[in-house]
């Protein structure tokens, strides 16, 4: 494990590529989060809502994205985490999580963070401000 202090502007944390999204992932997230909106788990409900299939909870992807920072917990914490949901995530999509250091100001590191699907499209994009102790 390296430290965030060594990171230079323009450099990235190590990407994480998720396993293809499965129905069980979304069933587990429904249970763990309490968000039981059926468009995330039940095909019929998704098609009634006009969707081509069930879609992942935006918060599932946002939750996954934050794990790029977990291993640095002794160095600091995520002070601000803001995300715009830009595209839907479907079953079997392969999502890659990315963070690039954009700016350093005293003990605050600003990262551009994004989750990208197999077609190279951002499904989620935003910013993390990491507060270093």
């Amino acid at each position: 494990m390296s430290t965030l202090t060594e990171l230079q502007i323009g450099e990235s944390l190590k990407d994480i590529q998720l396993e293809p999204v499965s129905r069980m992932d979304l069933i587990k997230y429904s249970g763990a989060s309490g968000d039981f909106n059926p468009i995330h788990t039940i095909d019929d409900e998704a098609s009634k809502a006009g969707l081509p299939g069930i879609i992942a909870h935006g918060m599932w992807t946002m939750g996954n994205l934050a794990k790029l920072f977990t291993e640095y917990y002794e160095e600091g914490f995520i002070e601000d985490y803001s995300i715009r949901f830009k595209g839907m995530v479907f079953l079997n999509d392969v999502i890659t999580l990315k963070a690039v250091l954009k700016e350093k100001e005293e003990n605050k590191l600003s990262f551009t963070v994004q989750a990208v699907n197999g077609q190279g499209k951002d499904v989620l994009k935003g910013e993390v401000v990491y507060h270093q102790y």
Partner: protein
Amino acid sequence: MFKDQIGKQSNKVKNVVERGAVKKFAESIGDLHPIYFDEEVGEQSRYRKNIAPPTFPRVFDYGVIEGLNLPNKGLIHGEQTFHYVRPLLVGEEVYCYSKVKNYFEKKGNFGEMGFLVLESYGDDAAGNTIFSSTSTVVISEAVRKVLTR
């Protein structure tokens, strides 16, 4: 129709950062770091406790905003933010409430869309804010028509 709700807020609800809930949540987002559930790793850390993942506040109960009737279908989660003063600690009590921060309408690709901004807070027992978050929910014209019927 949501404009008159701006400024309304719920009553504070006491929540607990439950150990089992944190582990299950961490598992569900594939963030299985021991800092979230291994007691020894928690004790050895600067926090002296286990912590919760940053999006964990999704599980809290924020109470009911009187008169705010959101449909359970047809809403799109547009944006989400979290602001932390410090990480949440496993086992602590958090007092949570929500507030209608803003509502506005904008013409988009799918007709006139409504944007509802909800702000949520988690305070410690002394009333100091630990985290705040905002959710922007997009409500399509079709859904609003159903609501006003």
